[in-house]
């Protein structure tokens, strides 16, 4: 049997943490892009378009992420796509993130006074220009704290992809635990690594929140 020293465990966990970071980044970027589309739908003038976006958001906020990942993992192969845990994880988390980000940013758009739209229109800007030049920059600025807060939630959510077989921090720790029988140490270290990733972001979000309140 191979002996694991403390440093072997730490080294393996840190190597696996790269995938957690990469997955978080990919899901955040993907979620922001898809979320932007959902946001456009959500604030559209057409009632039905708006309703579709609301339904999309309610669906992702009203079901467990684990189920969304399972559906992605077992559903996409039925459409003829060969799917790896990595693809299912990125796609699942992207859609999950898009719903939350769209809803956060929608709050920012709603918080802007009606006069901002009117001023844009009176300058002769059309709808897309109004959004791009006036509305969205302000909406993003006032929702920066909850956006960073959601990034923390997203990083923590990547832990669930271990269940559909994506080889990230938690899945690696399960394997190490099965080899070393030291769950206290292994899961304690995993928690510590997640804490080191999330805590600075939490503090940053808090600082933004305080700055916004002032």
């Amino acid at each position: 049997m191979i002996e694991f020293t403390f440093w072997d465990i730490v080294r393996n966990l840190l190597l696996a943490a790269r995938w957690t970071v990469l997955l978080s980044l990919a899901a955040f970027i993907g979620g922001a892009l898809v979320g932007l589309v959902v946001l456009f739908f959500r604030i559209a003038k057409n009632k039905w378009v708006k309703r579709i976006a609301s339904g999309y958001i309610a669906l992702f906020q009203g079901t467990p992420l684990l189920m969304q990942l399972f559906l992605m993992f077992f559903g996409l192969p039925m459409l003829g796509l060969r799917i790896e845990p990595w693809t299912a994880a990125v796609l699942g988390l992207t859609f999950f993130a898009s719903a939350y980000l769209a809803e956060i940013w929608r709050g920012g758009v709603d918080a802007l006074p009606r006069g901002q739209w009117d001023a844009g229109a009176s300058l002769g800007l059309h709808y897309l220009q109004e959004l791009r030049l006036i509305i969205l920059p302000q909406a993003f600025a006032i929702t920066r704290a909850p956006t960073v807060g959601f990034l923390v939630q997203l990083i923590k959510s990547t832990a669930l992809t271990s269940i559909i077989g994506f080889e990230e921090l938690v899945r690696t720790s399960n394997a190490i635990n099965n080899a070393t029988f030291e769950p206290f140490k292994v899961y304690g270290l995993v928690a510590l690594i997640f804490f080191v990733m999330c805590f600075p972001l939490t503090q940053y979000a808090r600082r933004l929140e305080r700055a916004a309140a002032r």
Partner: protein
Amino acid sequence: MGYSLDFGWLAGAAGVIARGAAMTLLLIAVTTLAGTFLSILGAAGKRNGPKPLRLAIGCYVEVMRNTPFLVQLFFIFFGLPSLGVRLDPILAAMLAMTLNMAAYTIEIVGAGLDAVPRGQTEAALALGLRPRQVFIKIVLPQALKVIYPALTSQIVIMMLESAVVSQIAVRELTYEADMLQARTFRAFETYFVVTMVYLGLSMGLRRLLVSGGRQVLGAGVS
């Protein structure tokens, strides 16, 4: 592609799904009660307790909020036995969910306590109520009314998060779904149906909490 959806297994599986859903609801009911109670103690301790206690509660909140629930669950279920504390899966799940939820609701309850005007406490003290009576009878009811919507959201989020406890073999909704798909080989259909059950549960739970809150806490609760 020759794949066609098949829901023929559903008739025989309804009982199992209902049993799983009942377990999920039991878990969230216990978590809600224990978590809210714990967070009232925590929020009060964080405001009025001695300095070491305040520090300890602050650390607890930060640790729980910055680590994944799944890791907390594994730590409690697999880690604690090495300290000689062996927990039954259901108990471990309830403990993990309660501790996780409390970390979030301590902040929520604390915000509610801060929102009650100071004059309320002073008026009650002037009427001769003891500090504990002031907290339980005057401050807490007003605080709960303010935070009720946030508390409701947190309970629903926790219910959705509870899907994870299937990983330590608690026989709740997700666990039953895993078993069903292994038996029927209809993974997508099974998870689709169970996802819809979760959607129904979360919408129903939210509605129940809102209407229940209106009756207990009075109008103005949304």
